[in-house]
């Protein structure tokens, strides 16, 4: 059995076990009020009273994540292109990318809320989360063009720009889509973290406010929705990658 399939099965099994455990603990009130059952949380998500709170929150977070993905991904691709073209700067750019990656969202979110405002912070954090995985993958992908193709372009007298546009970027596309796939869930989670710091809307806001108001089931619902949203982001990006796979391979 291939590793990919066995991995997927493991995750499926794990999810099933987790959900089962949750339902059991919740239904038996093993932890009291603070751990409601899975079924009650699901019921809350679907209920008419909660939907006007939860639905727009999901939408707002999704939009922030998307914007962050675009910005972070874009910057990462530019950084990777710079790294490729400017050999002397390569080590510095690598190091700064890794350094940026090691900065925790919580260390930079407060500063961003002051500098950029409370509504933009989720987007900025989503961009930050997307940057590193896309940068790493894009850097590798830009070198992905095989040496024979490189020779071909040399022989045909291609300029550097032509080489980048007609060979390296198309050759890098599969890798870039892969990077997007890896960065998508991070973007969602970055957005949610950013919303904790006073954003006007979003799932992060719901989590914080329901925690403060001791709205237990609502908090669980928002957390579950966050997880689902990040999984959805991954699934959509994977589907996109799969759809374009035939074209570029």
């Amino acid at each position, binding site marked *: 059995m291939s590793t990919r399939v066995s991995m997927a099965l493991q995750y499926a099994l794990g999810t099933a076990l987790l959900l089962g455990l949750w339902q059991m603990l919740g239904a038996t009130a093993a932890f009291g009020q603070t751990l409601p059952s899975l079924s009650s949380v699901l019921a809350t998500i679907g209920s008419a009273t909660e939907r006007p709170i939860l639905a727009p929150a999901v939408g707002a977070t999704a939009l922030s994540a998307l914007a962050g993905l675009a910005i972070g991904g874009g910057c990462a691709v530019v950084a990777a292109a710079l790294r490729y073209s400017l050999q002397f700067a390569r080590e510095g750019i690598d190091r700064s990318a890794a350094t940026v990656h090691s900065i925790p969202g919580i260390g930079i979110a407060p500063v961003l809320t002051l500098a950029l405002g409370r509504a933009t912070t989720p987007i900025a954090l989503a961009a930050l989360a997307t940057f590193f995985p896309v940068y790493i993958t894009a850097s590798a992908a830009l070198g992905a063009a095989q040496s024979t193709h490189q*020779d071909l372009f040399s022989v045909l007298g291609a300029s550097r720009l032509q080489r980048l546009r007609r060979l390296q970027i198309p050759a890098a596309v599969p890798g870039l889509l892969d990077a997007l796939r890896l960065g998508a869930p991070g973007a969602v989670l970055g957005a949610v973290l950013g919303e904790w710091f006073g954003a006007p809307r979003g799932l992060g806001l719901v989590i914080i406010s329901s925690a403060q108001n001791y709205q237990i089931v609502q908090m669980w619902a928002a957390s579950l929705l966050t997880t689902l949203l990040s999984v959805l982001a991954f699934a959509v990006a994977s589907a996109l990658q799969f759809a374009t796979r035939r074209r570029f391979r």
Partner: protein
Amino acid sequence: MSDSGLRVDVWEKGVTSHAQTALNPPGSRGGHIVLRGVDKEFSIRRRQRFVALHDIDLEIPAGSFVSLIGPSGCGKSTLLRILVGLEAPTRGSVLIDGAAPRELVQGHRVGFAFQEHALLPWANVVENIALPFHLAKRPIDQHRVADLVAMIGLNGFEGSRPKQLSGGMRQRVALARALALAPDVLLLDEPFGALDAITRRHLNVELGRIWDETRVTTVLVTHAVDEAVLLSNEVVVMSRGPGRILRRVPISLDRPRTRDMIASPVFQRLQVELEEALDEAESAAR
């Protein structure tokens, strides 16, 4: 001889007729290649050098077809790469029409076919053939591209991607791409090496026909002696340890060369002579 009208390519019958459109007007060729005292050394580790080529003196007149044969490691591919500027000689001079290979490349006047076809997987047949136009910053001559597609017998496959083509078809596309800009020099690095014997033979004949029409200066690197004899004006035998020219054998068969010539005594004699030379080249290394 050639009549106007659609090209009918029927592999099994081995009968073809050409479109009248002259792809390259003969007689207007450049592509005079002169190598003088060319050495090529590679340094593998500190103070360890590998001599790939030693003292290569070779002059290839414009419009001729020369094959390079020799045992593995004799430097024939390296020589080809030097001709197109992918490698620089350690010593000696390389002049093509009196200028360095770089001029040839920047003037987009050379066509090169690799052993691994090197087609862009995300582009279809037409886009691959048209690539040289883009890189030379010239408007695409759609007429010419269509002629090339017809010439290699891939009408109907214009929109196919390399993945959907057979090995022989891919090499044909690579060949058409090499000819796209009507180059002065055509360099072929074992382009048919990875193909089966039948496809290979078909492509040999095809290449011969193309060359007859265009008379572009061609240098072919190959392992197959019969291919070399079938196509060339002259066969250069190289030996290795280090790579140098062992012998030059002129091929004085009539053109156009056909498949039935292979059985003729003249052909067979030439083939034997070359094979003996190859044996000599092989043992010279030890």
